[in-house]
């Protein structure tokens, strides 16, 4: 007769105890995950993922604000001066180093498309409308805690850690931008 036939074999008890516990833990984990995941964006929220914008009437120096996924997106048709200012900055001076070329599409340097949400704590920076302050680098100024962005939407001053996000976008034609 081996040990395992003993009714109170402690090793066997421990094994049963641990496997039962493990199965229960996995079950609780799987169920728990479904509770947590319901709070993530639902399918219909995800479905609102793209926005098309007609840019044919925009003049150089003009900006528009459009809504994409419930967030403001800034589209700016930059003037040659603004493009030059953005290209001439030494990248090593930047908090979040990126060249201007990394922030626009090749051949379409006029068009800057960025999500209009300050990377600090989510306010909408000012500077899209003609009467709004653009900050000392000619881009955007966030009124909440004073972050300043340049004409490529890069962070230059203030508490925001990173540049304004460039959303995925494509030119569906010469006059239409599809965001998302």
């Amino acid at each position, binding site marked *: 007769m081996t040990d395992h036939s003993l009714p109170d074999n402690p090793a066997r008890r421990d094994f049963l105890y641990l496997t039962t516990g493990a199965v229960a833990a996995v079950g609780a984990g799987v169920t728990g995950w479904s509770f947590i995941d319901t709070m993530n964006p639902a399918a219909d929220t995800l479905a609102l993922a793209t926005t098309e914008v007609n840019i044919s009437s925009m003049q150089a120096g003009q900006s528009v604000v459009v809504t994409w996924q*419930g967030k403001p997106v800034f589209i700016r048709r930059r003037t040659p001066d603004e493009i030059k200012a953005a290209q001439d900055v030494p990248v090593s001076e930047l908090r979040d180093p990126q060249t201007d070329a990394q922030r626009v599409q090749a051949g379409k340097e006029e068009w800057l498309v960025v999500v209009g949400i300050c990377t600090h704590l989510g306010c909408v920076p000012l500077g899209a409308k003609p009467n709004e302050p653009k900050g000392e680098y000619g881009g955007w100024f966030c009124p909440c805690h004073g972050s300043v962005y340049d004409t490529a939407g890069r962070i230059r001053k203030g508490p925001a850690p990173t540049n304004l996000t460039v959303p995925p976008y494509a030119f569906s034609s010469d006059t239409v931008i599809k965001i998302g």
Partner: protein
Amino acid sequence: MAHGPREPFDNKIVEWVDSRLPIFTMIQKEYGVFPTPKNFNYFWNFGALAMVMLVTMIASGVILAMHYTPNAAMAFNSVERITRDVNYGWLLRYLHMNGASMFFIAVYIHIFRGMYYGSYKQPRELLWIFGIIIFLLMMATAFMGYTLPWSQMSGWGATVITSLFSAIPVVGKALVTWLWGGFSVDNPTLNRFFALHYLLPFIICAVVFLHVWALHVVGSNNPTGIDPKGPQDTLPFNPYYTIKDMFGLSIFLIVYAFLIFYAPTLLTHQDHFVPFNPMVTPAHIVPEWYFLPFYAILRSITFDFTLYLIVAGVAGGILIYNFCWRKTPCEKTKPFIPALLAVTVLFGIPAMLLAFFKDVEALKGVIAMIPLANIHLIEAKLGGVLAMFGSILLLAVLPWLDRHPVRSGRYRPWYRWTLIGFVVSAVILGYIGSQPAEQPFITIGQLATLYYFGWLLVIVPWLSHNEPVAKLPNSIHEAVLADSVKGGKK
């Protein structure tokens, strides 16, 4: 709770219930004859006042919820309808809106009372921690409640505060999307905030129950901080303190009623009465007054934690540990003290230059020469979030930061005055939090933040070993008699 032998009640119905569930015995024991120190002052009113406010908030909230619509398109108008069209809706809303402020006033004074008289000290540590948990839950509840009217301040306040979590490395962004249930503060956010705003007050009730239970196990502290030694030191709770609480409550309710009837929007920003527009941020986002000190701490961290700051901080921290937290420096560290001092100063100077003097023209040349200036381990944004949460969590460990044998601030002048400084720093921070993030407010806020943390982490531990231990009266009774003799001579 009420075990053991039971005195029968005369009333037959009461006796019938009590012999099956001794709830009347319990009330009698905990609130009737409960032996309470006889020397309470009015600071001891505020726990009961906070309790009254909790009940008021739940009662007014449940009725408001019957008229409120938690939908982004309708929420603002439903709250306007409550104020304009629903019978006495204006009263309910202003009760609830100003009730939150009164609740926080009561709790802040209650916390101050605990700090001044050393109520957090042994054996009341757990009681104190439950208190801080209640405070945190209240903050979460009030924050989500403020979102419900879906005003400009609601939406943008919610955006700024939820975005704090994006500072957490790696998972931050995903966490914020999860909190929002979308890609911005929108209808799903409003829905869950309403559900949680309804739920959390009941969780607060449960923690309040534990808080009061723990209180009734160890008994109340009192202004002398001396434990009651016998019947001459205590009074039965009823009628002595039921009456005193009623009197305090009457005064408190006069203030509350004044706000509701004469200045219902005094404490609320105008932008809270403008519908939320996700495309336009208001010029100043200002939280409700009770959050301002913490908001100011958040904004005080305008600098990244560079390599220099971290090294100087660690070396300085070891020194503080040896000279403030410990009575005498640890033998093993002693030989390294000069080296630690040197490291603190050598790294401290570039750290300070990088953190606070970057914008000074005259120093720009010097600062540009500092090597490795761009390496930072904690970004300013994360630093601010850690400081803000840290400022509250540190309060929870106050019983272990302060190890001085004397409980009450009445017999600890050094502790008392530095504590008053702490309160002043919190008030200054509150003012700074209401101002735009510009000079000189930034520097003032940083100095006040320094004192806030300095008091908790350096001064209080140092006082534990270095403040002289005063000779205390032998008992509460003796202290009260001495006071009345002094008063009689005047």
